């Protein structure tokens, strides 16, 4: 592995003495990737997620039918060579709808994570670092949000804002940021007493610089891991909102909404509910596995 005679990119990555900051960082990332790849189940989860991204991206090319194309003569046909996953109550091809539904699911998951991580990180680190009344005020706000079960909270917000994907994302984010803030605060409480923060203060660093360059990099791994693991819950809650008719609206091929309509035909056409259900199950499983692997690589306590 540490072959001194390696050349090219691999040699550059394996060089015992990095010659630039970029090379040193690349080497660290490379080591992390190798450790992640050593974890088979995490790798499987990641591969499945990458597959989902590709499917979402290439949906119009992959999907065998138009997801909105109704064919009342082909209502509720069981899985067959023509319709791998069967058709629903309006004769729409379920496979095509699931393929298009990937876009909605990923959109919701990524957007929620993109809102929740920065908000939770900023609120948590500020509360933990400054302490005192700032901490008190911010944490009481967090408590108010945590007092409600997240699905109930999301339901309340969606009902107030009106159904729809964007509103579902806002509602899910409002329900998901407080645990992230709690986590970031707890990490910050131990970090702010550390000697390396004391050393930064001795060098005259401003609070902002200490939070940005010392506290956040230490909180980031556990927050990233937590957000990834949360994504499974977000996907399930989004499906739940869709199921209750408060998320994506018909005829949008959202998995939860599909599951909800499939419920009526459970007895004689199991595939209408089962196919989106399996898609939800596999996706949240993959996210969980990948998140676990990510924690093993990133979380300093697992080093």
């Amino acid at each position, binding site marked *: 592995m540490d072959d001194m005679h390696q050349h090219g990119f691999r040699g550059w990555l394996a060089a015992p*003495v*990095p*010659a*630039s*900051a970029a*090379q*040193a*960082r690349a080497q*660290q990332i490379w080591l992390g990737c190798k450790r992640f790849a050593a974890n088979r189940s995490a790798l499987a989860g990641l591969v499945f997620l990458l597959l989902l991204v590709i499917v979402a991206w290439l949906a119009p090319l992959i999907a065998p039918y138009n997801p909105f194309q109704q064919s009342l003569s082909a209502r509720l046909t069981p899985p067959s060579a023509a319709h791998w996953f069967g058709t629903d109550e309006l004769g729409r091809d379920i496979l095509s709808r699931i393929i298009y539904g990937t876009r909605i699911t990923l959109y919701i998951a990524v957007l929620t994570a993109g809102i929740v991580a920065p908000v939770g990180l900023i609120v948590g680190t500020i509360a933990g670092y400054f302490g005192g009344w700032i901490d008190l005020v911010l944490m009481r706000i967090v408590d108010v949000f945590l007092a409600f079960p997240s699905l109930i909270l999301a339901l309340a917000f969606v009902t107030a804002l009106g159904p729809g994907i964007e509103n579902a994302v806002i509602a899910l984010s409002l329900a998901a940021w407080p645990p992230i803030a709690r986590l970031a605060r707890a990490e910050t409480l131990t970090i702010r007493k*550390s*000697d*390396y923060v*004391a*050393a*930064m*203060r*001795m*060098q*005259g*660093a401003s609070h902002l*610089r200490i939070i940005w*360059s*010392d506290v956040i*990099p*230490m909180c980031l791994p556990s927050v990233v891991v937590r957000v990834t693991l949360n994504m499974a819950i977000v996907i399930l809650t989004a499906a739940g909102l869709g199921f209750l008719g408060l998320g994506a609206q018909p005829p949008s091929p959202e998995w939860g909404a599909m599951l909800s309509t499939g419920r009526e035909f459970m007895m004689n056409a199991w595939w209408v509910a089962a196919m989106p259900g399996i898609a939800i199950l596999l996706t949240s499983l993959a996210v969980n596995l990948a998140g676990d692997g990510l924690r093993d690589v990133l979380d*300093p306590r697992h080093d």
Partner: protein
Amino acid sequence: MTQSLLEVTDLNVSFGEEDERHHVVKDVGFHIGRGECYGLIGESGCGKTTVLRAIAGLNSDYDGSILLDAQKQPKARRGAGFLRRVQMVFQDPYASLHPRKMVDKVLREPLQIHGFDRQRQRIDEVLVQVGLDPSFRYRYPHELSGGQRQRVVVARALIMEPEILLLDEPTSALDVSVQAEILNLLTRVQRERGLTYLLVSHDMAVIAHVCQRIGMMQHGRIIEEMTSEAVRNGQAQKQYTREFLDASAAFAAALEGDAT
């Protein structure tokens, strides 16, 4: 020593809330002349590190005055002027280096904060001075040994070109074999730069190696001040000091006995 560079008078530090307030440092006062090395020694828990942190401005909850060049320092955040003249070396190099910062960034940040020029050159120079090859600049702390880490910590303190170094048991977290290296580094740097040291330790051998004057602390007070000559000749006045010195000597002898 006509005028002292650093002077501490009537320093009192307490921790805890009203009912259970622990008076950790009691009426501590001493002065250090330019280029001098002063040692504070005492058993663990006697308040010596607390004194150091109060001087450094890391603990602003104290009574008494800390004077740099006869100027009283504010209790709240120390100004940039103070920090450029007084730097600190921490006890545990495993805790005082940020685990995710490259050596380069550790040394570059203070330069950026205080707007130094020739940053790259200064980093190379200070690395060489603490006995590390400049190729170490792109290493992370977990790739370094304890001794190398402590050299980086010393480099971080030196790069601001301070006049005073506050040394908080700079060798106690290190292997015995590495301790001597770091001590020699510290004495060499002091000679080369004409630094003033305030060294805190529980190890008489370390203190006597580096310091000219020594303050013996017990239960938060300096009970006796002596020269390192006096220590070596066993001329302590107080009973506690004599016991402490005897215990240290016996321990050192036992160690040597083990070695042979």
